[in-house]
């Protein structure tokens, strides 16, 4: 006897169920298909090519009227099912009631709408069905600006399609990098770069506050106060399973409609399939698993129950020119190991995640040709131990084993390309070596090989070794750390010239061999980026040593010291009282006068930091940066104010210098002193910058030391006015910031570049001096602020995340 099957929703999942039923049991059911959209089944994932104009709706229809007629499927398109009445086994469609023997819910998902004011304005659309797509096409025909909220798969496909149709598109993304569910930060960076190259603006960490407009959407307002004009706003921030009917009918619903492995809901006569379901605690947002589910549903309906097993899924983005692939679980969980490969020249990034000798996840950008092979290894759980070495090079590299890198280089044919940036092949390099270029620098000069991005440096060195044999001595230039073969100097130069403006850019374009650096390179790169790109780059506290992240010096017992600034060593009774009160209130075990003319409160508990800072702030005291690679102290003597020998206002100059320089980040710490006469009570002649006042003006000395090395300052210049002394100091510090290697004090850096080189820029070339002063001022406009005041406003960050000491085990 034919049973009545009612299907709610004509989507991708139910389309598959219908295919299986019409193939295997064409006469088993009287099917009625109800769809809220005024059309039947179509290939929803191809809406993006429709939006971009590569396809039309007709191209993506999977089941047309002729199909439904031929298989006797009754259709009700354009009206939603509004209720399921389980006792009587009927559903309500508009004014009608349809009865069923078996019911299949395939209602898919609904786009998530962020609850901001203005979300209902005309001109705000979501991206789910053909109507949305047509609305976007119509808007794009008018031209203008589009803002897409959401930098996931859907948002980016919408953005690319709208850009293709000529709109000026901005993508807003809440997280730090695009498609964070599918991509790691490195791949997210490459994707962003490719999208930006096609004119799409990307703003990450952008929180939408409201959509504003008079009668229709005109702009998007962000939490940080930015207003972005918009003729069209697309919300693509996520989806949630469409479960309303099931909930109303009293079926078991979690995040989705709960089904067992046979896709049955809590009512045995009702099955569910697709994005609306939750199976084994999981939700599904891609079609591959839905197709497996559809098979199981059809099998169950025809009396041959099967089992649905959630499997890994792979994602690709359907934006031409943005080749990305991600599969499996590339982020979660312990016991895992990474293999990373980067080819900066070609913009390629691949990362494999291995656990227990199995591949569990893969992320690829730029070259995804091997994606399916890796996906196969993930799904099959293949033991990859035997091919581990060459795994990342894909199936082509399996089999032959040329393990020794030298013999591999020796075996390359002369026309093999070594330097991708400059197109230099092996033959050219070998003839240069034969012609007398016997070290890296000479090969670089003769052929340009390894002179651009530098990633082939290792290969060129191996060629030198192969060609010269024992005659080649490997150069001693020290790479920053094990994550790269590049030196600090190379990296600084490449950050400026390439240019590179984010840590992801450095890791990718300079071929870092680790996922995100290590404790040695991260602080250095963070400094280089913020010094060279003060506007574009934002300081990353997570790349700083604890003292600079906590803005206090960590002690051997894990407590901290707190040193407020005392400008030029001058203080007041009121400041001293505030310090004394703080010492009492927070039970500070040690109060010490430092060698830098100020007071150190040692032994403060980490949790108390925000509170003690707030108290000190109230008395006008700010951070003394006793912990930073930045300006520490400016020591002064009493000078003309009190001393019978004083020639100039050394205290005043010291205070002015400290006020100009505080808060800036430098390659290493910087200490200054100003003495009022050559008796030099402030010990200015052993400082990074030390000024000695004389009758005729100011002797500005630089590059002194009195720590692990002791060295007298060298004279930068003698100047007549205080303003010149300040200008020279600021210009010198900025030149140091722009050029020195991280953790070189000024005396070490000046020894490398030579005092004459410094003088030429800071003293002689007045245009360059002004440029340095302006660049420093720009940086200070961002970084000169009291970190204590900022951090004290958010004390929660200093408290433990949770306290489990009170909870007992069950």
């Amino acid at each position, binding site marked *: 006897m034919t049973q009545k099957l009612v299907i709610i929703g004509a989507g991708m999942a139910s389309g598959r169920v219908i295919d299986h039923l019409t193939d295997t049991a064409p006469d088993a059911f009287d099917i009625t298909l109800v769809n809220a959209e005024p059309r039947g089944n179509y290939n929803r994932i191809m809406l993006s090519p429709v939006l971009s104009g590569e396809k039309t709706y007709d191209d993506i229809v999977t089941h047309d009227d002729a199909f439904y007629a031929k298989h006797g499927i009754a259709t009700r398109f354009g009206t939603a099912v509004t209720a399921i009445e389980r006792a009587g086994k009927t559903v309500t469609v508009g004014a009608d009631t349809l009865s069923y023997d078996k019911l299949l819910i395939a209602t898919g998902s609904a786009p998530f709408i962020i609850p901001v004011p203005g979300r209902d304005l005309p001109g705000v659309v979501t991206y789910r069905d053909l109507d949305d797509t047509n609305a976007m096409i119509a808007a794009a025909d008018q031209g203008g600006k589009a803002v897409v909220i959401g930098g996931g798969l859907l948002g980016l496909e919408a953005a690319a399609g709208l850009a293709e149709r000529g709109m000026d598109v901005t993508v807003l993304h809440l997280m730090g990098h695009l498609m*964070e569910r599918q991509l790691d930060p490195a791949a997210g960076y490459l994707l962003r770069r490719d999208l930006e190259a096609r004119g799409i603006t990307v703003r990450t960490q952008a929180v939408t506050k409201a959509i504003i407009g008079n009668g229709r959407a005109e702009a998007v307002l962000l939490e940080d106060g930015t207003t972005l004009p918009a003729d069209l706003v697309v919300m693509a921030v996520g989806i949630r399973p469409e479960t309303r009917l099931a909930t109303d009918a009293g079926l078991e619903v979690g995040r989705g409609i709960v089904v067992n492995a046979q896709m049955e809901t809590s009512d045995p006569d009702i099955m569910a399939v697709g994005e609306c379901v939750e199976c084994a605690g999981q939700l599904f947002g891609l079609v591959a698993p839905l197709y497996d589910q559809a098979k199981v549903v059809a099998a169950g309906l025809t009396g041959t129950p099967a089992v649905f097993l959630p499997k890994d899924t792979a994602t690709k983005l359907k934006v031409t020119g943005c080749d990305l692939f991600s599969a499996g679980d590339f*982020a*979660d969980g312990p*016991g895992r190991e990474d293999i990373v490969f980067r080819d900066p020249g070609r913009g390629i990034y691949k990362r494999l995640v291995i656990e227990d000798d199995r591949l569990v996840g893969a992320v690829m950008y730029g070259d995804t040709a091997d994606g399916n092979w890796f996906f196969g290894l993930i799904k099959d759980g293949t033991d990859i131990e035997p091919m581990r070495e060459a795994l990342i090079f894909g199936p082509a590299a399996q089999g032959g084993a040329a393990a020794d890198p030298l013999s591999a280089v020796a075996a390359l044919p002369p026309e093999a390309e070594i330097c991708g940036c400059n197109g230099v092949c092996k033959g050219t390099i070998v003839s240069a070596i034969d012609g007398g270029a016997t070290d890296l620098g000479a090969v670089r000069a003769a052929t340009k090989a390894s002179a651009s991005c530098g990633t082939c440096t290792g290969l060129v060195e191996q060629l030198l070794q192969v060609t010269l044999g024992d005659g080649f001595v490997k150069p001693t230039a020290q790479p920053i750390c094990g994550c790269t073969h590049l030196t600090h100097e190379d990296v600084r130069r490449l950050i400026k010239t390439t240019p590179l403006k984010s840590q992801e850019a450095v890791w990718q374009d300079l071929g870092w061999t680790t*996922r995100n650096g*290590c404790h040695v390179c991260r602080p250095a790169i963070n400094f280089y980026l913020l010094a060279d790109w003060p506007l574009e780059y934002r300081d990353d506290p997570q*790349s700083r040593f604890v003292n600079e992240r906590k803005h206090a010096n960590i002690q*051997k017992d894990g407590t901290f010291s707190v040193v407020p600034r005392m400008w030029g060593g001058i203080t007041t009774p009121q400041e001293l009282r505030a310090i004394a009160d703080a010492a009492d209130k927070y039970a500070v075990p040690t109060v010490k006068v430092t060698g830098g003319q100020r007071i150190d409160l040692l032994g403060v508990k980490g949790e108390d930091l925000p509170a003690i800072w707030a108290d000190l702030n109230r008395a006008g005291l700010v951070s003394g940066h006793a912990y930073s690679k930045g300006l520490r102290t400016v020591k002064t003597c009493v000078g003309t104010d009190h001393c019978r020998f004083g020639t100039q206002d050394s205290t005043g100059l010291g205070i002015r210098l400290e006020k100009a320089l505080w808060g800036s980040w430098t390659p290493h710490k910087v200490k200054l002193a100003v003495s009022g006469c050559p008796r030099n009570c402030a010990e200015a002649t052993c400082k990074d910058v030390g000024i000695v006042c004389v009758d005729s003006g100011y002797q500005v000395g630089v590059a002194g030391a009195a720590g692990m090395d002791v060295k007298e300052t060298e004279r930068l210049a003698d100047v007549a006015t205080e303003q010149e002394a300040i200008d020279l100091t600021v210009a010198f510090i900025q030149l140091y910031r722009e050029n020195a290697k991280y953790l070189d004090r000024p005396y070490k850096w000046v020894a490398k570049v030579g005092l004459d080189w410094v003088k030429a820029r800071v003293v002689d070339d007045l245009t360059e001096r002004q440029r340095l002063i302006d660049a420093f001022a720009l940086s200070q406009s961002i970084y000169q602020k009291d970190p204590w005041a900022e951090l004290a406003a958010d004390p929660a960050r200093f408290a433990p995340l949770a306290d*489990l*000491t009170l909870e007992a085990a069950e």
Partner: protein
Amino acid sequence: MTGFTWLDIAAVDDIPLRGARKIKTAMGCVALFRTGPEEAFAATDRCPHKGGPLSEGIVHGQSVTCPLHNWVFDLNTGQAQGADAGSIAVHPVRVEGGRVLIDAAALLRPPAA
């Protein structure tokens, strides 16, 4: 179940990316490290060398560097890397739906008898 007691600790965004936060437990402080957008680890917050607070260290790859003397620990195994010998206790963690869950079985106080 599986012997795990999954306890919802916080939103994963409460831990800075490539950073850490600590939680107090009956067994001492435990550091929660966020090594990737959706990837977290947990380990005791005490360095076996001289007790350095690991939650204050630089987090890189799936490792953390102790802030006091730069020992590096693999957060998968808890083993110190390179020449240093020593290890820290690690605890199972999951990130799910934007929340961090920790297996609290070993961290909770046994119920009072």
